[in-house]
């Protein structure tokens, strides 16, 4: 079963708040954790994909105009309180396993090396019916 695990971050002052305010050692510890987590998922064969996304200021919204050409405007995050910072796509045997992996991501270390216990959104990736 495939699941997408999504990490959201507070929009307000993304670089002034959160990771932007931690001491260098804590930033390094967080990065090291994320890299180790990625490797562990790769080793266990559960990783499909994992990516960080560009910051909210770099987001754009595209709509097609009458002729099908792209009309580009600023991202949708002006009024939003949060934005999608990154995601993992995992392939696991059960929902319980998806929740267990999400809990590991949630416990990533933050300031003072204490676990962040941040909320991780978990949604199943829809799949085609099994081949007969």
């Amino acid at each position, binding site marked *: 079963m495939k699941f997408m695990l999504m990490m959201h971050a507070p929009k307000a002052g993304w670089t002034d708040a959160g990771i932007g305010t931690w001491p260098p050692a804590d930033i390094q510890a967080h990065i090291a954790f994320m890299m180790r987590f990625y490797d562990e998922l790769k080793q266990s064969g559960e990783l499909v994909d994992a990516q*960080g996304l560009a910051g909210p200021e770099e987001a754009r919204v595209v709509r097609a105009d009458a002729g099908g050409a792209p009309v580009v405007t600023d991202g949708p995050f002006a009024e939003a309180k949060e934005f999608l910072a990154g995601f993992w796509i995992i392939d696991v045997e059960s929902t319980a396993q998806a929740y267990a992996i999400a809990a590991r991501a949630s416990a990533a270390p933050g300031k003072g090396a204490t676990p962040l216990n941040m909320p991780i959104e978990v949604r199943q990736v829809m799949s085609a019916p099994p081949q007969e």
Partner: protein
Amino acid sequence: MQSRRHCWRPACSGRDGLPASPRGWLIHVAARRLTDEIRAEIARRRREAVVMLEMTPEAAPPPDAVVPADQDDTLNLLVMCCHPALTRPSAIALTLRAVGGLSTAEIARAFLVPEPTMAQRISRAKASIKASGIPLSRPSPVKLNDRLDAVLHVLYLIFNEGYTATGGATLQRTDLSAVHAEAARAEDTDWPQILALYGVLERIADNPMVTLNRVVAQSMVHGAAAGLKALAPLDVAGRLAGHHRLHAVRAHLLERAGDRAAAATQYRVAAGKTPSLPEQRYLLTRAAVVDTLRS
């Protein structure tokens, strides 16, 4: 650099009687030895190029032929790879493969695409060049001039990619800045010469990255304050305004100039704008380090 160190050893072996000018003799012998090695390397590359680009063998000289010093096949290959029919990404990939000697897997990793995708891209690029019927020979001055813009652009894209990519050690091999490569340590870099080279390059290739790199060289020669002053007009208008590298360079210069508060802010702005995850992590860490130094 390694080639040069290697060549000193045989030249220093014991001899009967001292030459009139031992230093001159040492330099002369080492230079001859280095030239021989370079010629052998060029011949080897030419053989590899024939195979790599699937060209007809009659285009290449016999394996043991002495290639005249003014025919640098690396340059020919580079000019060929920067073919106008290729898109810049394809030209870069082909250049890294044919000139840089990277494997397809390494190039795919650098571009964060699957290996089969990169293999296809390089195959298509090779096919385009083969279809163009251009032989592996020194390009005419007219042709060289046409391609110069493309060559410089590809070199700078490679240089800047190598500077920020995760696969640092691999991509350092394609660092075509010969002056940088001559320095045994970063502190020994001949910055005045680099500044002069960038000055020339800016006149040939109108590229905002060249301008930014020239400002960096300027700051290394004339100081951080001079660099910051040179940066100011780049922000106002043009292709660099709001670019993450502009903020990153400004941040480094502010830090060197001692304005740590402004430096931290600029590092964070750059971190928010860069599309490179390793670069973002570096910039955030740098901001935090600067903050630590302030308190």
